């Protein structure tokens, strides 16, 4: 397999020794570069890498960066059975940590929830500043393509089980932005959504009602969004890449 990608990059940069790497000995090239060169540029090549080699192409990254990132797709992790899972689900539902990422105008409705009038802490809900530690992602209203580029890695960095609340009509059908050139219309084409809260803007009371519904669903074992994402990973990823044109991050952000 010709190492066309590397050759082209070196040639474009005009790096010294570009001619020397034009026809390299295949045994001296790093295995990662050897397999991915050329193949990752085509859709067929990416699909082959995903289906046959069970790994991600990471074609948005520069070849020399690919070895720094993980190429494993997410895996489905089956829940336990019986009483134990019910107990864990109860704990998950009573300790909902929201990712502090206001993705749209609806995030303004989250602030009153923290203060004394609505006080979400009494339901075990609290904000958390990093996706690593949070389990609820509240998409606050319209999601522009630029924000989707940040929403996707943030969602993927959250550790499962993780839940998504779609806040406002914009997340359901685009709302008043339904024909906008740069906002997505249906959020659950890009990440799995557990509960939608309709309205423009929904009041904090509606948001609390949404949280209560989310709690009920978690206790009933109906919130398996992380597993759904892993099962349909190709579909979600294809949808995300369809709208995010300048994809320059790993295919799955650990």
């Amino acid at each position, binding site marked *: 397999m010709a190492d066309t990608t590397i050759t082209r990059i070196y040639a474009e940069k005009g790096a010294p020794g570009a001619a020397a790497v034009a026809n390299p000995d295949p045994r001296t090239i790093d295995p990662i570069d050897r397999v991915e060169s050329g193949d990752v540029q085509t859709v067929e090549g990416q699909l082959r890498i995903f289906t046959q080699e069970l790994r991600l192409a990471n074609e948005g990254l520069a070849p020399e960066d690919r070895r720094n990132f993980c190429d494993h797709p997410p895996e489905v992790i089956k*829940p336990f059975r019986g009483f134990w899972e019910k107990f864990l689900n109860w704990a998950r539902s*009573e300790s909902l940590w929201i990712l502090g990422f206001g993705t749209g105008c609806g995030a303004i409705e989250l602030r009153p929830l923290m*203060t004394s009038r609505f*006080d979400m802490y*009494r339901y*075990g809900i609290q904000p958390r500043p*990093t996706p690593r530690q949070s389990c609820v992602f509240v998409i606050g209203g319209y999601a522009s393509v630029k924000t989707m580029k940040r929403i996707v890695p943030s969602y993927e960095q959250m550790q499962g089980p993780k839940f998504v609340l779609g806040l406002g009509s914009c997340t359901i059908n685009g709302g008043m932005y339904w024909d906008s050139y740069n906002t997505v219309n249906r959020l659950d084409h890009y990440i799995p959504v557990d509960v939608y809260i309709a309205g423009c803007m929904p009041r904090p009371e509606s948001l609390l009602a949404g949280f209560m519904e989310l709690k009920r669903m978690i206790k009933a074992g109906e919130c398996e969004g992380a597993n759904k994402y892993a099962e349909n990973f190709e579909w979600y990823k294809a949808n995300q890449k369809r709208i995010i044109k300048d994809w320059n991050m790993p295919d799955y952000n650990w």
Partner: protein
Amino acid sequence: MAILTKALYTTVSLAVITVYSLLLIGTMARVRAKVQGRIGQPAYQPFIDIIKNNAKRTGISHGVMFFLGPVFRLAGGLGTYLFIPVIFGSVIFANFSFAGDLLLVMYFIFFGQLGMALGAGESAHPYSPIGVARGLAQMTAFELPFALSVIAVAAQYGTLSITEIVAAQQGGFTNWVAFTNPLAMIAGMLAFLGMSMGNPFSVVMAPQEIPIGPPTEMQSSFLGMLQTNRAIFNGAKMVLFMNLFWGGAAHQYLIVAILIMVAKTFLIYLYVTIVGASFPRFRTEQSIRFFLGVPTVIGIIAVVLQMV
């Protein structure tokens, strides 16, 4: 056989302090909520949070040191607690206290933070080293008044054994260090504010500026372990300060002694919470300047008074 009995007793003591500290953390969150006019989270919320974090199905490790960071932190918390006698005169709650335990405990208070610094460093998140740098700078500053107050107390009673310091304070509250050596108590309790990392010395965690500081990348059971350690470490520090300055907990009936311990540590934590609810956050250089100012001067005077 004796060591096995000792280990069993220590396990019981550890379980008691963990459960009590978690409840205390939850209660103090409620107290802060009341100050802000809210109802606040249930007092048992820390338990649920720990269960939830340990029940996460996935967890990301960034390497061996990242894995060992929380382990070192927990070792620091356990080490601090295991060498402090909790209830004076009780076999069950004596832990592994011995003649020079005060020095070892002071070392262990540092140990966890240094281990955590290594673990947080490997996570490669830029906010982690910022938090670590702030934490270590602040810790170096409050260590000075703390060490001076400990030296003053050790010089007062001529011993480095916590048990003997507690024994010397028995027989009425006028024998407590807080009354016999008030300058050492003031320096120590001011240093305790920094040690607890509540407001105004909360710049280490500072969720609004650097997301949560050193544990930014910690998640799942790593975070669960850190939360468990937080309870044990907090409990150990409160018991240490109760022993050093407030006469320890002693009674002929164990249950009464435990209640005394609960009351005293509750008040010590309440003091931290009230200060935290009343003052805004210091910047790092402000907190360093604070600790190297009045508390250190008070500590030096306390030590000098013991020398003359």
